[in-house]
């Protein structure tokens, strides 16, 4: 029966008939009927290279054998993959590949999961006819993290191709030619790259392996646990491999999780952080001024006793709670329940307050939902992408891969509004892929968005429905933008009208438009209002409610999104819903047997203010470190010292934990069960790979135990019981499916916004921010995330410290010349608030006039920073300031 549709093709493979989409490769079609054609160089993520010649098959009417990895299917094609001729070909190719192979399987870390072993087992049981001298490559040192053993290499170039096609890093070079081709970096230099581990993962043999666990295992000795990486909001699925409770390696298999098997340096090489020798393994109580070991009973009873006393004396409002978005949903939920129901306070906050709430609150306001209206798949499928304030490669590397795939493989057009210079360096740079890059200072991202809106309005690029149905909205926004002149926009952003017009036209002309906003925007001074304006731009262009389109704010911590949804914020109940929402409060009364306290809870910085003022007397801080994270000006340390009770649940004795009265050792995400909600709103299971280290316990167990000791006992036997309760309250926490279906925007909410919602702050949002004055000898210092670190865990990860062990101030080569400094020079930064000393690293991706200091080492920089609070979202802003710099000896 001939195929009636034109986009599928019918063929037979070894007698099985299969219908597949046009363009499918024979090797992929074969897989569909369960036929595995042996291969080395083929990989679904890579363009066919057909170099290993392993996948030769017979195709009817073709005189020569064809490579299944490079031959697309054709209607009526008949393929034979197991005929004598094909088997002989497979055998002979294997014989060639094995000729120079050292056969050192006994000492090869790949042994047991090696394609070459498996195919050899399948095809060549005979002894080799090769009696000549084997090729020997000189062993060369490649990298502290990655080992190469070129004698084992089958020259399939998967590593090289992955590094280029998927990562866009291009750090691997096939060197020499012919049989002497070997994979190197640059001459004798050790590898410098993103250290994503992709080459290790994609190598079909033992030529490229991880040095972190070299010679420590045989694959079959390893116990595996599929769980979720805790290093950023991308939520990559990782497989943690352990041997006798020791972490041996982390990897991710093709097709796994939202990351489809791809990882970044943090995910691949950062896993040893949790077993760092400084891990807290027993409770500590402050006695005579110093923290000394105690039993859990002592510690919990002390905490409960003090808490009960304070509550008795000062009421629930004297408590404050701060929790990290690295905790599981179950823990976040129980934490806010503990603070609200047991202690009676609404002064709750999480790391989402540092920026993620700006994006979420903007979405709630304009589109009426709190999650992305698109998924990672939509990023890949987008035809136009706009990135605002997100050096996505370094903050959310796997989201970055989706962007790269969209642009490099599918030809999407990328527009970037970034404080990032296009530059070829050892790590990839998303601005290099941009077809229109608007290099804008972080302080001017909002103005740049304004420029886009203004251009869209002037060019009449608007959605006709919006124009027709909401003329007042359009007129309102038009009026607001008209009050701003192009010269003012250009003076502030350095970008002229034509560039905005081109960008706006590209956005308007798209079918599937995805806007990604990252830390630069969300943690910026106007993170919230710029997010609202970006959503407004989508509204004007008619893209907001279109399938495949959306505004996607990127979460920083792995579960910042979950923190918001669990209600770990003063103004939000689980859902999230507004604290004042009557229906939600009623539901909680029914579930908790008690009403949450009324509005008026303090957020992050307010809590510290209240602590300093003596209003808040006790704080529970779970995994957060405000002393090192917030500017010195906030005086977090002073505030915490003023407390009667400071309880910290921590992995390490941080600057904050060091001030505590009680420190409780927490289990890491490798040691507990639960769920994380990633940046796209996908809820994923976290599974323990090892037992909790020492006496450490999962955080939720602490809250449950305290509830008992404080006389309001909960009955949760395991974290699943908590999840059950969450499910009854919050949609989207049902089955943990493999692919999330993004919630559609709430049309009623959008209509409300268009008719009224936009008005309240319109004039304020469409203001041009004064450009930061450029003064000779000064630089604009920004805290930014580095690819290799994401906070206190990564800075204790042996692998990551080998790549980036100490903080350095990154500056542009032109500035380096201006200040007369070179790499490793020491410099002192100062302003009216304070000073710091650090060393220099020159990087082309830093825009001129700017200096980047890594966020995860930010404690040193806190004296220089000042802090302002967003009036709507109460997000503290302190990421950037002006400093002068001098070289010191």
């Amino acid at each position, binding site marked *: 029966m001939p195929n009636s549709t034109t986009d599928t093709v019918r063929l037979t493979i070894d007698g099985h008939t299969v219908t597949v989409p046009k363009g499918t490769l024979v090797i992929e079609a074969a897989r569909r009927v369960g036929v595995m054609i042996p291969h080395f160089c083929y990989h679904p993520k890579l363009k*066919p*290279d*057909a*170099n*290993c*010649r*392993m996948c*030769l098959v017979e195709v009817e009417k073709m005189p*020569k*054998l064809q*490579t299944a990895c*490079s031959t697309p299917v054709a209607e009526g094609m008949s393929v034979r993959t197991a005929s004598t001729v094909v088997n002989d*070909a497979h055998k*002979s*190719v294997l*014989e*060639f*590949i094995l*000729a*120079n192979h050292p056969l050192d399987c006994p000492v090869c870390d790949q042994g047991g999961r090696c394609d070459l072993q498996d195919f050899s087992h399948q095809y060549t049981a005979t002894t080799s*006819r*090769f*009696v*000549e*001298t*084997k*090729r*020997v490559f000189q062993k060369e040192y490649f990298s502290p993290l990655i080992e190469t053993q070129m004698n084992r290499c*089958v*020259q399939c170039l998967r590593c090289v191709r992955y590094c280029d096609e998927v990562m866009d890093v291009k750090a691997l070079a*096939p060197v*020499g*030619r*012919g*049989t*002497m*081709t070997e994979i190197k970096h640059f001459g004798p230099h050790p590898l410098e790259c993103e250290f994503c581990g992709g080459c290790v993962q994609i190598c079909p043999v033992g030529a490229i392996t991880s040095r972190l666990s070299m010679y420590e295992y045989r694959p079959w000795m390893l116990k595996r646990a599929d769980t979720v990486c805790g290093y950023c909001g991308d939520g990559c699925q990782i497989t943690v491999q352990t041997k006798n409770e020791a972490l041996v390696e982390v990897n991710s298999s093709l097709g796994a999780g939202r990351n489809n098997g791809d990882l970044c340096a943090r995910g691949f090489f950062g896993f040893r952080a949790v077993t760092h020798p400084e891990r807290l393994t027993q409770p500590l109580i402050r006695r005579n001024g110093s923290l000394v070991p105690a039993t859990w009973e002592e510690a919990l009873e002390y905490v409960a006793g003090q808490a009960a006393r304070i509550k008795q004396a000062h009421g629930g409002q004297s408590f404050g709670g701060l929790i990290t978005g690295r905790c599981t949903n179950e823990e976040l939920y129980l934490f806010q329940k503990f603070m609200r129901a047991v202690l009676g306070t609404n002064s709750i906050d999480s790391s989402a307050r540092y920026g993620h709430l700006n994006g979420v609150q903007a979405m709630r306001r304009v589109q009426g939902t709190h999650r992305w209206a698109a998924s990672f798949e939509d990023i890949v499928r987008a035809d136009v992408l706009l990135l605002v304030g997100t050096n996505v490669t370094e903050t959310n590397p796997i989201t970055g891969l989706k962007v790269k795939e969209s642009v490099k493989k599918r030809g999407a057009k990328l527009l970037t509004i970034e404080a990032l210079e296009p530059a070829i360096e050892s790590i990839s740079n998303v601005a290099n892929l941009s077809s229109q890059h608007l290099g804008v200072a972080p302080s001017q991202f909002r103005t740049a968005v304004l420029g886009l809106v203004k251009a869209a309005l002037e060019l009449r690029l608007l959605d006709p429905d919006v124009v027709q149905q909401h003329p007042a909205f359009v007129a309102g926004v038009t009026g607001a933008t008209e009050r701003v002149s192009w010269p003012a926009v250009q003076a502030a952003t350095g970008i002229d009208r034509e560039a905005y017009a081109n960008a706006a036209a590209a956005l308007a002309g798209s079918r599937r438009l995805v806007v990604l906003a990252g830390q630069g925007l969300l943690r910026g001074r106007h993170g919230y209002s710029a997010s609202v304006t970006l959503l407004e731009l989508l509204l004007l262009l008619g893209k907001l409610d279109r399938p495949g389109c959306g505004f996607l704010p990127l979460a920083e911590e792995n579960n910042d999104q979950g923190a918001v949804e669990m209600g770990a914020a003063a103004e939000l109940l689980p859902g999230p819903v507004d604290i004042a929402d009557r229906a939600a409060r009623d539901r909680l009364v029914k579930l908790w047997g008690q009403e949450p306290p009324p509005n008026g809870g303090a957020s992050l910085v307010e809590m510290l203010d209240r602590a300093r003022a003596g209003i808040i007397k006790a704080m529970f801080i779970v995994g957060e470190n405000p002393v090192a994270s917030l500017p010195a000006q906030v005086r977090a340390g002073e505030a915490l010292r003023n407390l009667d009770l400071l309880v910290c649940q921590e992995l390490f004795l941080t600057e904050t934990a060091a001030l505590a009265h009680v420190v409780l050792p927490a289990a890491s995400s490798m040691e507990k069960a639960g769920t994380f909600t990633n940046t796209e709103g996908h809820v994923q299971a976290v599974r323990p790979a090892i037992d909790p280290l020492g006496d450490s316990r999962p955080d939720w167990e602490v809250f449950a135990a305290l509830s008992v000791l404080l006389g309001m006992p909960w009955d949760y036997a395991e974290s699943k019981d908590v999840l059950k309760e969450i499910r009854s309250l919050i949609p989207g926490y049902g089955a943990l499916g493999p692919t999330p279906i993004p919630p559609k925007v709430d049309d009623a909410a959008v209509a409300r916004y268009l008719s009224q919602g936009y008005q309240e702050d319109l004039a304020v949002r469409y203001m041009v921010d004064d450009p930061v004055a450029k003064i000779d000898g000064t630089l604009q210092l920004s805290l930014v995330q580095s690819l290799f670190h994401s906070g206190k865990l990564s800075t204790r990860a042996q692998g990551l410290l080998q790549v980036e062990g100490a903080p350095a101030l990154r500056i542009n080569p032109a500035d380096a010349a201006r200040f007369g400094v070179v790499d490793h020079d020491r410099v002192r930064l100062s302003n009216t608030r304070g000073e710091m000393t650090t060393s220099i690293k020159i990087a082309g991706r830093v825009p001129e006039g700017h200096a980047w200091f890594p966020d995860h080492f930010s404690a040193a920089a806190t004296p220089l920073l000042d802090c302002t609070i967003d009036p709507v979202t109460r997000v503290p802003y302190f990421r950037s300031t002006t400093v002068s710099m001098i070289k010191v000896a």
Partner: protein
Amino acid sequence: MPRHELILLKNMSQPGYTGSLADYEKAGGYQALRRILGHVPPAEVTAIVMKSGLRGRGGAGFPTGVKWGFLPKDYQGPRYLCCNADESEPGTFKDRQLMERDPHQVLEGIVLACYAIGAESAYIYIRGELVLASKILERALGEARHAGYIGKNVLGSGVNVEVWVHRGAGAYICGEETALLESLEGKRGLPRVKPPFPATHGLYNKPTVVNNVETLSNLPHILTRGAEWFAAIGSPPKSTGTRIFCVSGHVKRPGNYEVPMGVTFRELIYEHAGGMRSDKPLKAFIPGGASAPFLTPDHLDVKLDFESVAAAGSMLGSGGVTIMEEGTSMVWAALRLMEFFYHESCGKCSPCREGSSWLVQTMRRIIAKRGRMEDLETLVDLCKNIAGRTVCAFGDAEVAPIMSTLKHWRHEYVELVREAEAANLIRPEPAVRP
């Protein structure tokens, strides 16, 4: 004195001909350009070339007009012509002479081809070692640009053609057209997987034609004197025109001889090249460059055209005819060529990469009288497992010397092995380098 009319080597055979623009013009050069550009539609030019029967002179012998015809008709973006001047096939040295002695003939051919295929840019990818030829071409390009034969609006026809010389840097494989394109793009010269073919996805992924120097040099003549004239020369209908055969080895007068296709090897070797250099008789010859299987004196009356040589079990290839006299060891000769292929294997495909080193080592062992009888079977097996199993034709080429010498002179291999057995030296080399 040649008995046939010279076409390509005619100008340079004139006394005092320097290859300068003035000389070339005096000899009737650039007349085709004047006649064709802007007057004969490109499609018609392609039709003429197709009708002439001109086939590629680089080695594969693909009909030139047909190759041009594969370019997408409606494609709007840029197209490219690449002149394959990466003459590297051992035994071949004709393009060098065409470029060094009559560069304008090549350039005129290039501009005509560009016109026919609608390319505004052409790159002459010249073998890196041919420094003198590239200098001569550069000088000729300067003259041609100055005279308006190359550049914007050539001869007022509205046609733009820019031509650049791009030097390779030492890699035989870059004579393979897709490897050439990769190299021209600044990459390692690894052949591409086909399809897609250069006609649709060539240089910078744009429609591209790659033509050999000699092929292009024929164009001014075909387009001046007509397809019928050309198609009548040689051995019509399939092998038309003349070819420059490069004769090397044990003959009296090695050199380039332009003869109509279809003359016999006997005529080429004994009349043109003056016969054997000494009293030793002919033992073997390679008819078309190192990639072509060896032939024997039995094949002397085979005609030098594509079909006849193929029928004799070899190929006309690049036109490099290498003559070997009695006394030449065929095992040694095959090894010399095998060493060449081993050195030049790009390393992309496993069978060729690993097979070439294996073959070389086994051949060296046999020559060193450390071979075993089963090595001969292994050689044949390896050759069969390489041929036809690689991305490009290199795999087929590299096994030709061993396969053909084993076929015709197996006894020489056997003798060496027997000697090895007699000397009781049959142990293989140890597995580590001494």
